[in-house]
């Protein structure tokens, strides 16, 4: 039904007009509430002039402290709540997570989280470059932690990377890095992650992803994994149009939506009545 017809109807029956208006208000209001994180980003008034250290502290206090605690020790929940991954409470302690974790969570737009108890999803960063720098430095200053890693994928071997990736990662992320589903989590695509983000994710183990120590995956091996993920982002599609590198599902769609449609069309054309 088109909008104008809807309106005509609504106008036609005065009794219903009120109901339509109400419904529209609720729908619109609901949509807006859904689209905006309940906590908007809080910024200090004269952000440009502030030194980084002060900016970091203020941004933290305004946007992060409610879940991670004013001193970065985390906030246990008052009411018993289902934890996110291994986390119980509103947010984990940030002492000792270092620049590495802060860089990952801020650059993938995961923090600040909308609300605890929900899997963080990747999106564009919610802070600008200077703000991220300030926050990362601030979180790093909360305790001794690892710095932002600097991987060298060019030193890695793609073959070793493919092997390591199928061994450690493909069970969740799919061989071509296209993502998938786990009980209790959506597994994101890895193709869009930068080399540093991949290195960070492997060392952090965000949400349900396991954390890999240097003993399990050395930095050298990590370089290879990243080299492979880069290949997966632009794979060798010798066979033509890659249709998403997911295998059978898009192939079935091509079969039905292209081949079958074409061939039935041919049948209809060729089968036009002669008699």
């Amino acid at each position, binding site marked *: 039904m088109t909008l104008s017809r809807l309106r005509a109807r609504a106008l036609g029956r005065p009794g219903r007009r009120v109901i339509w208006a109400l419904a529209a208000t609720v729908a619109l209001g609901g949509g807006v509430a859904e689209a905006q994180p309940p906590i908007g980003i809080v910024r200090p008034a004269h952000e440009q002039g502030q030194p980084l250290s002060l900016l970091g502290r203020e941004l933290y206090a305004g946007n992060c402290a409610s879940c991670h605690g004013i001193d970065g020790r985390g906030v246990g929940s008052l009411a018993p709540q289902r934890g996110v991954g291994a986390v119980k409470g509103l947010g984990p302690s940030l002492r000792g997570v270092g620049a590495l974790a802060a860089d990952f969570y801020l650059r993938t737009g995961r923090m600040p989280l909308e609300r605890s108890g929900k899997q963080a999803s990747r999106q564009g960063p919610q802070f600008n470059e200077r703000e991220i720098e300030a926050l990362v430095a601030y979180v790093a200053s909360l305790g001794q932690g690892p710095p932002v890693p600097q991987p060298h994928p060019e030193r890695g071997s793609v073959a070793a990377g493919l092997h390591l990736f199928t061994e450690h990662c493909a069970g969740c992320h799919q061989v071509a890095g296209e993502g998938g589903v786990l009980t209790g989590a959506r597994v994101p695509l890895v193709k869009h992650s930068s080399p540093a983000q991949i290195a960070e994710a492997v060392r952090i183990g965000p949400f349900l992803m396991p954390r890999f120590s240097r003993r399990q995956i050395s930095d050298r091996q990590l370089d290879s994994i990243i080299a492979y993920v880069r290949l997966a982002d632009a794979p060798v599609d010798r066979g033509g149009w890659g249709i998403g590198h997911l295998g*059978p599902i898009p192939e079935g769609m091509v079969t039905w939506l292209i081949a079958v449609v074409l061939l039935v069309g041919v049948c209809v054309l060729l089968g036009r009545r002669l008699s």
Partner: protein
Amino acid sequence: MIRRAIRFLDQRSGSAPLLRKSLRYLFPDHWSFLLGEVALYAFIVLVATGVYLTFFFDPSTAKEVYHGPYAPLRGFHMSHAYKSVLDISFTVKAGLLIRQTHHWAADVFVAAIVVHLLRIFFTGAYRKPRELTYVIGVLMLFITLLEGYLGYSMADDLLSGMGLAIGYSVALSIPLLGANLALLIWGHPFPGDPSFWSRMYVAHVFILPVVIGTLMFLHLALVASRHHTQFRRQARQTERRLVGVPAFPAQAPRSLGLLAAVAAVLFLLGGLVQINPVWQWGPYTPSLGTNGAQPDWYLGWLIGGMRLVPHFDVTLGKYTLIPNPFWGGALFPLSVLVALVSWPWLERRLTGDHAAHNVLDRPRDAPTRTAIGAGFFTWVLLVFVAGSADRVTVAFGLSYPAQIWVFRVLVVVAPIVVFLLVRRVCRELHQAELIERDRERAEAEARQAAGARAPRPA
């Protein structure tokens, strides 16, 4: 020239009467009768491309280290089987084109059979005297599923290995027989002993194609001997009257054109659209796996079935009597097979119609059949769609468990709703036609009466 060649043949084989008869065979003049031919031609492409592939494929599980042209796999330990598929894709002349065309042809072959089956079902073409033709057709469909599964599995890449693992778990899950059956087929607990590969290979390139070919021949011979069915063209067309166009010169060019079109579409897909890029998946080792591994589309309904069945095992004390994969992976397809095969007899029971039928129903002419069919295929379709719920989650963010529950409800409710709805629509259409016909007859009578009364113009 042609005349001479035919005379030559006839004098040595006496084949002219047969030839004359087949050239005069009357084909029904409706496009939907060409759907089965699409399947036939896809099968021809399958055999032709398959023969080429056998020249290069090596069904051996012996391991070697890869040194071929595809750099990301250099240094990998892999079976000869997987290596030979890589070689077909990267070094054999036209290898990738033929391999991809073969795979597309398999996907299209099964799809064409399904479309053809739908036409047969909804027009009641399976009724006496063609039940045997129909049953052979359904059997061919299911044998083709097995044939496709074997072809997919032989490449020994990551996806095919995982597919075999699922197949193994389904075989094991069959009550009483399972363990022995699995051992009989695999020869050794998963991944099986090397002879399993030669078994798969012989079945895929020889036994099953010959079985399918033979059934296809029988199918066509039966169609010809009972003659095609046809739609009602004239108001009082009897069951015995044949109408249609002769094989020559009408149907033969049509069929040749269709053969060319099918081959063209398949080879175009083979050349332009990538299918199963095994080099991207890497070789299989039982300890490895990938998220979202799927079989080819025509087995997707089994994955869907296994996902929708709630997680429970039938146990007796410590023993698992019926492991979970049985329901979705074995019982579900088996019940679809049984339902399809027994349908002609079931319908006869329901309607009490034991007569022979050469004239087809339109779907609306048999509201109950059409409604049952629509409900039944909706059921299978929903299970099939549920098989890709995980990709919907990744692509659109819809919660996976929520989807599974929605599908569980839909699978029960939707077929009933579709049944009622379709029956209603068919009945209305049918009613409307009857009313229309009555009115036309009444008008014609009125006109006649008026004409009789009016004085004849001089």
